């Protein structure tokens, strides 16, 4: 499947989530890391996954990346129930994960890193074809990499992040998961990466963005899913939510919109339950 067809598919099935988690739970020994998690990602949508340390964000990413499978619950990809037992199964489904440590080989050049494990080869490596495709990919992302023949070690943090994100696109994924892509970056580099995320959205990809930086989240995300202590603790549309609301959902402060809404619903439910008795 080519990148173009991914975009067309995305436009056609905007109503259907590309990735949807239902009731996913995961425990490590005595610790219940995730309990009954629901999450949906639509094509052409950036979903920010936020939460305090230990909220279960990384566990969720690892389940989607095939590092370890969930204990219970289902994952649907394009409406099909799927299992993700291994990292390569995750890749084959069309989920590309960019881990926080980027996992680049510092001693190799940009081209080698982009095509690592997927080299174009006809007996011998086709360096020219790979270099050509590297340039066209980086241009599509408007990435500012001066040369693709220099070792990744000599690139700046933002450029390294760009290479890692560009690499995730080589396999024509449907969903890209970015784990703290701006954590170690300066102002300009952060802006570069945020531009990049917007470009992924324009391509019709579903993006899961994990971040602690609320400014970044509010800048690019369409929706914010909050995790707290391994449970869903709110799902907001970004234009309709304030910074304080997100923070209180993350920290679990009692007086927030989620709690108030839940209380209101509960009261309504109770009143409807009471009314037949009356």
């Amino acid at each position: 499947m080519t990148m173009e067809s991914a975009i067309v598919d995305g436009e056609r099935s905007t109503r259907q989530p590309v990735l949807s988690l239902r009731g996913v739970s995961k425990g490590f020994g005595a610790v219940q890391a995730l309990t009954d998690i629901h999450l949906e990602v639509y094509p052409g949508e950036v979903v920010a996954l936020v939460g305090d340390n230990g909220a279960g964000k990384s566990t969720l990413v690892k389940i989607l990346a095939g590092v370890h499978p969930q204990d219970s619950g289902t994952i649907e990809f394009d409406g099909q129930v799927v299992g993700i037992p291994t990292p390569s199964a995750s890749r084959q489904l069309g989920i590309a994960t960019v881990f926080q440590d980027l996992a680049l080989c510092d001693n190799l050049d940009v081209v080698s890193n982009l095509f690592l494990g997927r080299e174009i080869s006809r007996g011998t490596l086709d360096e020219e074809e790979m270099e050509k495709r590297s340039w066209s990919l980086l241009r599509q992302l408007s990435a500012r990499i001066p040369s693709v023949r220099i070792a990744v070690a000599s690139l700046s943090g933002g450029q390294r992040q760009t290479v890692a994100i560009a690499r995730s696109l080589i396999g024509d994924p449907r969903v890209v998961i970015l784990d703290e892509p701006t954590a170690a970056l300066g102002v300009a580099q952060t802006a570069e990466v945020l531009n990049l995320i917007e470009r992924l959205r324009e391509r019709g990809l579903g993006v899961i963005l994990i971040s602690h930086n609320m400014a970044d989240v509010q800048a690019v995300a369409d929706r914010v899913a909050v995790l707290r202590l391994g449970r869903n603790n709110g799902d907001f549309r970004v234009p309709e939510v304030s910074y304080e609301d997100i923070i209180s959902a993350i920290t679990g402060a009692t007086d927030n919109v989620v709690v108030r809404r839940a209380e209101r619903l509960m009261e309504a439910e109770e009143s409807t339950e009471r009314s037949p008795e009356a």
Partner: protein
Amino acid sequence: MSKAAQSTAPESPAELAADLQDERLIRTEGLGGAARAFGRRVRGGDLGSLPVVIGLVVIWVVFQILNPNFLSANNLVNLTLQCAAIGTISIGIVLVLLLGQIDLSVGSVSGVAAAILGVGFTQLHWPLWLTVIVAILAGSAIGLLYGFLFTRFGVPSFVITLAGLLGFLGLQLWILGPNSSINIPYDSWIVKFAQQTFLPPWAAYALAVIAAGGMFLSDWRRNIRRRKAGLSEGSVAVVAIRAGLLLVGLCISVWYLSTDRGTGAMFLLFVILVVVMNFFLTRTRWGRSVFAVGGSVEAARRAGIKVNRVFISVFILTSTFAAVGGLLAAARLASVSASSGGTDTNLNAIAAAVIGGTSLFGGRGSAWSALLGILVIQSISNGLTLMNLDSSYRFMITGAVLLLAVIIDSLSRRSRASHGQA
């Protein structure tokens, strides 16, 4: 010419090759550009094989001053023959160092192969070709065992191969049994190959032409492919000059060696092995995965490279090269003994790879460093022997050179870090 090339920056991007459109790039065009790019690389700590080439020249000049026989054709022919066996072992060391691992047992493994050759051929009267194959396969099997232990149990290769150093020395002694020393008949083809087979001059010149022509064609075709892909291409002049220099260098070497016995077949075999391994390392997916694993195991694993297969394949190759080197050494001496593949075989093979410029830290190096490194080590050894200095000096000086090479490796690593390249 160079000024003009730099001042043409405001060209429209459409006319520029895809890889030259960034205005931050320092443009390098033509011969002057190639020379300046080389200078920048060296200052940035990307020394490549420069220190070892300079070191080799210094060593040769010093020994020639101390003993005028050093650079005689006769002695240089000896030098090439001395290089082949341990150099072959060193190719395997380069591979294992590229992964950031080490094999300390190559000496013992080469001794086992030599013992199999001696006992199988002279005592058990196996056909020679069969004995050679069995000896080489024994090396591969040892490598497979190392690879299995390393990937299955995660024991550091340092410890596995240290155990192997001792264990396979024992196996070598066990195979030899009561024979303290076995002579391999002089009329067997393997001894003739190692001691008496030299290329006739016409064949050596033909090979030199083929090598230079091959390099020219390969570079030239790459230029054509790059042009087709819309990328910048190197200048034809640089390609031609590189190939021309190689041709001149090879022809002078061949001519000088042929004033004595000529180019030894065993040395040629060693060089061919280096060229073949260099090809596999730089032009195939397997080679790319070796560098990737050496750079970062975790990154390679996440990129979908089957890391365990890479480790096992390299351990097998290292032990196989060790076995081949052991056979060559036995054939050159026409004898096998308990001391075949003794202590300095091991250390010389490792030292050669490091001196040749392969990093101990993994992910950096080239098959050529086996050739360059062993030339340095054997030049020192040969020169000191010519001066009638005994092995005590040889060990001390080789040790000092190894230390120097490791220091250069560490310094250039630091320099790369400060120039943002490590």
